[in-house]
């Protein structure tokens, strides 16, 4: 007799997106609704970016309803409710937590608190059914740049993270100064294809072997100085070259540190996640160098790179299997670290 399927309903409201999802057995997405896809949201003339927790309050129930209806699952049929409890903005997190508690309490089902960063890593389990720990994870987004040794489903070791700006933040800020539209990451990626990545040598911070920490603030300043210097001398900076050279500096550091960490952890798989995982230069450079060195590399599809509740549901499933449930005292932890 096959074992009963586990349906996890998960909520994610840690930052800009309000998202709800239903995932079966941690691997199969039945629905993954993100607020910007919900027409009712437009009716309210949604603010972008929707930092406002008020927006989460308006969105959260319609998004949950839609996730359940697309999945064809009733709330009573849900096995457990997962929710992001940190890291993130406290007001935003509290909306998801309050809603998840109410839903779990209403149907007397377990509540599971999920670390957003762990969720990003688990996005890959949804895209690749065969993927299992141990592996090395690079989480690289607008808010995070972290190297994590995933030893087992519930065992993580943070090897290093950024000391200042996240990689995605550097992409967005450089793009803004070059007058490119938001979000800047994909725009730089596109523009870089037309430029020479060796035209300008921008600094590679903390590139000494053995350091798993990142720093992108100095690189951001160097790019801004280059652009300011050109403007002061009434010269036209070649934006395509700047984009390509900046991107090359970011990617070179990410790839080198990832490969070094993978070797140190004695793993044979590398898993990338977060918004910057969608960057074409990072994908091609890391794939090429990692495959040459004998690693398998996994990048999630774009929809799972951004903040979404499906990845939270996948993480919640593995916590559920191990009995890591929360009680109704679960609170937001804005500065939550990896366990």
């Amino acid at each position, binding site marked *: 007799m096959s074992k009963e399927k586990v349906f996890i309903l998960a909520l994610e409201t840690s930052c800009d997106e309000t998202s709800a999802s239903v995932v079966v057995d941690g691997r199969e997405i039945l629905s993954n609704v993100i607020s910007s896809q919900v027409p009712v949201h437009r009716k309210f003339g949604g603010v972008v*970016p929707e*930092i406002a*927790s008020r927006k989460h309050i308006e969105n959260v129930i319609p998004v949950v309803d839609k996730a359940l209806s697309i999945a064809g699952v009733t709330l009573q049929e849900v096995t457990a409710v997962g929710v992001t409890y940190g890291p993130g*903005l406290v007001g935003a997190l509290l909306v998801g937590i309050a809603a998840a508690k109410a839903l779990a309490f209403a149907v007397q089902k377990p509540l599971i608190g999920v670390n957003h960063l762990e969720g990003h890593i688990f996005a890959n389990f949804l895209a690749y059914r065969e993927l299992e720990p141990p592996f090395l994870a690079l989480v690289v987004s*607008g*808010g995070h740049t972290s190297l994590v040794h995933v030893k087992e489903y519930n065992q993580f070791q943070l090897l290093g993270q950024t000391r*200042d700006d996240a990689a995605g*933040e550097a992409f967005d800020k450089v793009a803004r100064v070059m007058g490119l539209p938001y979000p800047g990451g994909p725009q730089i990626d596109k523009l870089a294809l037309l430029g020479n990545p060796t035209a300008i040598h921008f600094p590679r911070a903390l590139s000494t072997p053995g350091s798993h920490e990142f720093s992108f603030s100095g690189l951001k300043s160097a790019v*801004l100085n280059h652009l300011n210097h050109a403007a002061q001398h009434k010269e036209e900076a070649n934006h395509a070259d700047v984009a390509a050279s900046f991107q090359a500096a970011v990617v070179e550091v990410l790839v080198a540190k990832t490969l070094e960490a993978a070797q140190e952890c004695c793993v044979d798989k590398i898993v990338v996640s977060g918004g910057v995982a969608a960057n074409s230069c990072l994908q091609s450079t890391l794939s090429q160098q990692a495959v040459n060195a004998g690693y398998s590399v996994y990048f999630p599809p774009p929809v799972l790179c951004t903040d979404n509740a499906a990845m939270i549901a996948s993480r919640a499933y593995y916590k559920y299997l191990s009995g890591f449930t929360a009680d109704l005292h679960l609170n937001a932890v804005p500065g939550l670290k990896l366990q």
Partner: protein
Amino acid sequence: MVMIHTSSPEETLHLGQLLAALLKAGDVVCLCGDLGAGKTLLTKGIAAGLGVTEDVTSPTFTVLQVYEANPPIYHFDLYRLEHADELMDIGFDEFVSGSGIAIIEWADKFSDFMPEEYLRIEIMHGATPETRTIQVQPQGNRYESLVEELKKIAGSCFRNVNTGF
């Protein structure tokens, strides 16, 4: 007010550490300056001066980061906010009138919504990429005396300090 010229990121960090000694619970510091001016760097210095050992990272994405120190530090970044009513949504007033030290990057975006009294610090690029001119301006009695104290300390630590005005 006082103008302090720093010649390296290390000096800017050091200025933050000096400032930390003058700040107390309930104080508000508004940081202004272009992208890459060194607002987060100065905050790193203040946090280090208050005994924070963890990395102080850019709060652009999260809008607010809290550091457990004595008193706690509320590090805001208003860069991504577009409307003043979003300040209410993030609990801005509660934190700013609270029991910690509030440090607010990109405060100029919402200058009408800042408290009556605060310390305004503007970081400007200097003649070379590493140098900065840092203008510290008091708003209210509490901060006027703070700036007087800063003049005394900074005068002995930095070669290039302009006081008066």
